[in-house]
């Protein structure tokens, strides 16, 4: 059985710059663009799936006001499971069930990695919105309620988008393990470079992966800026500043949820194992 994708045959003596700027490496079936496309496609699928799982779950649990214990456990479990190990574990299982060695194991592992950040930001966003909306709806007339709902939903959406961004960057950064488990993607350069003792490939691959991750973060940043109205962003910054590192936020019952609701805290979730 062919378990590894065709290795790149690259001259060992080529320099990094030359390699990066040679048109040949970029185009073609095994070129950088194609490979990167491979990575992006998988990650897009991962993010879409996790969002589909996490957003409704987070919103529902926040709405019924019951979710806090469940939320902390989702976060903890998602955090504790090493992604590479999980993907590795899933390879034989996936093969056994006839799904092939690629891309399902990595796909499942990455999805599990991405669910916690999105879940948590959704949960936080909705539970922060809900009481306000309910309160306002009770006291105000319909007209005002609609306006308020729109503002609050926009606020919630912007927070959720941040979670998606974190998850996306994380997914792109973690995806390279795929190559080591016999799959494609940008990790291949690193794998081949390490295997062939080719520093150019290793460095090049590393730079490409880092660049793609940064690009993903930036792209989502731009997307957020475009989608979310300016006023809402300012509202949010003021809220973040007011509540970050505030000891009173960390009530006993929800220590673990709110500790991760910090702006920096959302980065804490960006691990789950591999990262």
């Amino acid at each position, binding site marked *: 059985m062919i378990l590894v994708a065709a290795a790149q045959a690259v001259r060992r003596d080529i320099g990094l710059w030359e390699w990066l700027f040679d048109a040949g490496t970029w185009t073609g079936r095994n070129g950088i663009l194609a490979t990167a496309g491979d990575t992006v496609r998988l990650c897009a699928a991962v993010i879409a799936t996790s969002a589909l799982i996490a957003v409704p779950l987070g919103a529902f649990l926040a709405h019924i006001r019951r979710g806090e214990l469940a939320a902390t456990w989702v976060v903890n479990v998602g955090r504790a499971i090493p992604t590479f190990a999980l993907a590795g574990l899933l390879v034989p299982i996936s093969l056994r069930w006839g799904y092939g060695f690629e891309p399902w194991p990595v796909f499942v592992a990455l999805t599990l990695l991405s669910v916690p950040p999105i879940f948590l930001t959704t949960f936080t966003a909705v539970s922060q919105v809900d009481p306000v909306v309910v309160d306002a709806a009770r006291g105000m007339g319909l007209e005002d309620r609609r306006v308020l709902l729109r503002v609050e939903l926009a606020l919630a959406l912007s927070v959720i988008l941040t979670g998606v961004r974190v998850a996306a960057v994380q997914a792109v950064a973690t995806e390279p393990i795929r190559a080591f488990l016999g799959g494609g993607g940008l990790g291949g350069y690193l794998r081949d470079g390490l295997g062939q003792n080719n520093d150019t490939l290793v460095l090049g691959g590393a730079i490409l992966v*880092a660049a793609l991750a940064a690009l993903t973060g930036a792209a989502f940043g731009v997307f957020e800026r475009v989608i979310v109205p300016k006023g809402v962003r300012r509202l949010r910054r003021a809220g973040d500043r007011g509540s970050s590192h505030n000891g009173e936020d960390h009530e006993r019952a929800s220590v673990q949820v709110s500790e991760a609701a910090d702006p920096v805290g959302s980065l804490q979730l960006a691990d789950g194992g591999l990262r």
Partner: protein
Amino acid sequence: MILAQATNPIIRWEYLRDEWDKVRTALIQHIELTLLAVALGLVVASVLAAIALRYRWTANPITTFTAFVYTIPSVALFGLLVPYTGVSRTTAVIPLVGYTLLILVTSILTGFRSVPPAVRDAAEGMGLSPARRVFTVELPLAVPYIITGIRVATVTTVGLVTVAAIVGEGGLGRLILDGLRRTFWTPMTVGASLSIILALVLDLSLWGLGRALTPWTRRGGPQRAATR
């Protein structure tokens, strides 16, 4: 295909019996590396956090720097170091420590900043020396946050050590890759499962440690006395 599956199950238990030494070595290597990285990370993070707390203006640059290191994809960072430090333990330890910094520094900072201002004021006003204040008042109150940070850092590192196998380090990741190369599933399954179990066990133990260290958070809420 069916034949291949019959002789190549997900886990063949004889493997565990026969190659137990190899598995045990990998597990020990893994734990060693994890603890080493987290311990070193804690030392470095404490220094960084102390600087950030003492000289307020450094807090932002320090946080930004550790965040930057964190965003570098791990595989990439391992890869980037290989040409310079070769395939050695250093190549693994440097990124591992680096990745713990963001979470550890943040937790330490958050912990110290969570001390209520009134407590700080009272401690200073009653004449406790700065050292006494930090070690008997502020540090104990910061411990819950710091422990949480250590938990996350440890679990993360367990996962990262698994990846470190690709730069030649030992550990459970080695088992996974070996299994892959030999198309022999058992080591993969064993390696992967042990990583996951190890991470969960360490997480739970540290959680327990945290609870043991903070008896005051375990009591109930205010119980108003009968009078007043």
